[in-house]
């Protein structure tokens, strides 16, 4: 059985984002990088399945991006993936989700993966499209926003998060692709022996140019920070006068008291 988990390295969301020189994406200076949180759930679920099914399973982790993404790949290997594919692309951020999905699909097409795991979406772009489009291009069944996962002899039982706190259960035959949501599991912290072992695991590097066949379907026009709206107002003083002030503000600036 062959498993694939696709991960993305994203900037930490606490970082200070600034537009890049072309103004179509963020500048990479002063950013701290980490594995996309939803992809950590995907890796964890894939590793759990691999551990459950034993040695006959091969779990590959894949990531597209410049050299820095190897850090995220190493973490996935330390968490328990068997080997890795790094699709070298210094300008991955300039590609739209369709192109990224097609690169993965072209790579995965003849590899015979039974199950593909991805995060629900990336924390930076947040398009939530790559997973489903990979499934579409490969002709796999797919299911998004998983909060529960079970696998038994070729059938995936997935619990999905729906609107309004409702959950749905989906059964799919493999080959299939699932995208993982918060609540699915708690990603493990790699143990030191596994970190040591992961240093010896194979990372295959492929050039994106060999896999890229699709034209972009969407273009990023501009990247900018939202205009600053007025900050919060902190009132201080005696309660009685505070009440008057609040009523005054509500009358002046809102329509609630009219």
């Amino acid at each position: 059985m062959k498993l694939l988990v696709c991960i993305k390295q994203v900037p930490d969301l606490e970082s200070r984002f600034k537009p890049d020189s072309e103004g179509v994406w963020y500048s990479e200076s002063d950013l701290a990088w980490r594995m996309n949180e939803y992809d950590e759930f995907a890796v964890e679920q894939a590793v759990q399945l691999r551990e459950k099914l034993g040695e006959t399973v091969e779990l590959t982790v894949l990531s597209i991006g410049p050299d820095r993404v190897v850090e995220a790949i190493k973490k996935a290997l330390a968490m328990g993936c068997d080997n890795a594919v790094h699709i070298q692309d210094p300008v991955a951020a300039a590609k739209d989700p369709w192109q990224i999905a097609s690169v993965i699909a072209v790579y995965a097409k003849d590899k015979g993966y039974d199950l593909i795991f991805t995060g629900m979406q990336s924390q930076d772009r947040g398009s939530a499209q790559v997973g489903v489009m990979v499934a579409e291009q490969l002709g796999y069944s797919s299911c998004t926003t998983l909060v529960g996962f079970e696998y038994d002899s070729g059938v995936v039982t997935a619990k999905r998060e729906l609107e309004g706190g409702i959950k749905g259960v989906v059964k799919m035959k493999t080959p299939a692709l699932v995208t993982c949501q918060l609540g699915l599991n708690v990603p493990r912290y790699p143990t030191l022996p596994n970190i040591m072992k992961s240093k010896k695991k194979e990372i295959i590097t492929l050039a994106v140019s060999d896999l890229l066949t699709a034209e972009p379907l969407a273009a990023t026009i501009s990247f900018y920070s939202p205009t600053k709206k007025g900050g919060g107002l902190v009132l201080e003083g005696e309660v009685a006068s505070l009440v008057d002030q609040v009523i005054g503000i509500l009358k002046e600036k809102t329509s609630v008291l009219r």
Partner: protein
Amino acid sequence: MEATREIYWNIGHGVVIPMYILAFAAFAVLAWGFWQRLPVWRQGKALDRFSSYDERVMRMTRDVFSQEKIFRVTAGGVFHSLFFWGFLILFVGTMLVMIQADLFTPLLHINLLSGEFYKGFSLVLDLAGLISLAMLTGLIIRRFVIRPKGLEIVRDDYIVLQLLFAILLTGFFLEGARMAATELRQNPGLAYFSPVGLLAAQVFDGMSQDVVLLSHKTLWWIHFGLVLGFFCAIPYTKLRHILTTSANAFLAPLEPKGTIATIDMEDERIEQFGVAAISDLTWKDIFDADACTSCKRCQDSCPAHVTDKPLSPMKVIKQIGELAEDNPSGNLIETVSQDAIWSCTTCRACQDICPANIEHVNKILEMRRNLTLMEGAFPGDEVRTAVSNIEVNGNPFGMAYAARSEWSEGLGATILESGEEVDILYFVGCYASFDKRNQQIAKSFLTICSSAGIKVGILGKEEKCCGEPVRKLGNEYLYQIVAQENIELIKAYNIKKIVTTCPHCFNTLARDYKDLGLEIPVEHYSTYVCSLIADERLKLEPEPFDFTYHDSCYLGRYMDIIEQPRSILKAAGGLITEMDKSRYDSFCCSAGGGRILAEEKVGSKISEARVKMATDTGAPLLISNCPFCLTMFEDGIKTGGAEGVLVVRDLAEIVAERIAVSADR
């Protein structure tokens, strides 16, 4: 008539050979008892605790004979120390009698035990016996009548206390019987040099000579038998501490306090990290269990224990001993429990107060290493998040690393990246960099330095967490990653001295980073400011204020910096009211051992307990000099209902507000 006595009087010299045979037999039992312990100790890994022999012997001699560590705690300690010295004098006196009788008399034909010396000898021994008896009574009353909380009563206590009591009592009556039959008749003046014996002799007053002689002979054999019993009992009862606790004073580490073994991360042969079983411990860790006297001082001084958390340092040591003996292949971490292991604040109060030189903290740290490095475990999800924040952004808050030096904007600190030369590198640390309240410490420190004309450099966004909290949580791997990055960075600049405002950074940079190759001198700002004042580079304008002072664990107990902060505060015009638990007895704020990253979910809050101690002094101001302590006390004051009663401030803030505005600057 000359003052002396006939040794073996009424017993006869025929006793000498059987007496020695029996004595050697008793020593053989003693030796056999310890010999049998060897395989238990040897289950542990090798560790050198025999090098620097002279220094170790000196320390053992001082520790054992001064009893310094024992009477540090008055309750029980004074009784024990006085008993020890009394019993020691009796032992030496008895040895002297033995040497006189079996060496000096037959071989040299001289009598040391005569004349004025004998009078003094008699009096000293009698008083020593009296003191021993009184102290033993005190110990018996304490254990069985007063019964302090946590002091267990076990089989050994009955055996040991009764045995010692009987030895002393039979000794006095034996003396009394001899005096009734001899001294009182022949040399009554001499009898006054044995006042207790004289009192015991009254019992035999009026008895026939035969009865007295028979009583004497019987008592002699009983006394002798009990003494042999004492030696035999040493390895099998708590009396073993006479040898094991003394040995521990020899075996205690010679490294600076707080030294933790730095794991060689390059060594690929290591497959097991930390301690999960008895065989992962060192032999000394197992030996420690035999050196424990169950005095429970560690437990009494443990902030986790007294706030109802499932940790007793004494219990941990005992559990190691029991597992090593009964079930060596058992799971040590399960036995001790994860909750107990994570509760430790590494405050070192247990180890500092332990009269037996037991090393509690590193055992707990080694178990944490196993949990963290082998299991990927955390004491809570909030800790998992904080640790991952350190990995990504180099600080536990998860704040953007690029924002690390924003606090310093416009305050005149040089960011070293600029290439400018500086007098000192101020290693700011995460709390003073990112936490609003603690930024006041950093700002105050810059104010102090600028008034003293010191040019301060900071690493800015290049600085990372020193790694202390994660190291104390057992994550040696992450610690070494951030430490190496900091070290390489610091080495790349021309730095002559590093100053920290955080005692945790200070301990880590000054001691732990040495193992990883940082050799630049590191100082905590409390000693640095102290020397600035002494050199008259910094002038303070004293202004009276009342305060109480909290010794942070990593400054006081770990680094012996106790007086300098107090002297600075005195120079600033402060009048101190000490808390009961101060200096080496200080009570942790709860944030050590990586607990700063964890929520305190079990028991009551340590910070509130400490805030209560501070308010009990009546002082309106609590001064600390550690960002962790400040954070915990700000919290403890709010949740413990001390708002309006107590304010907590850092030493740097106090100093910065009292800088003299001199004419020449």
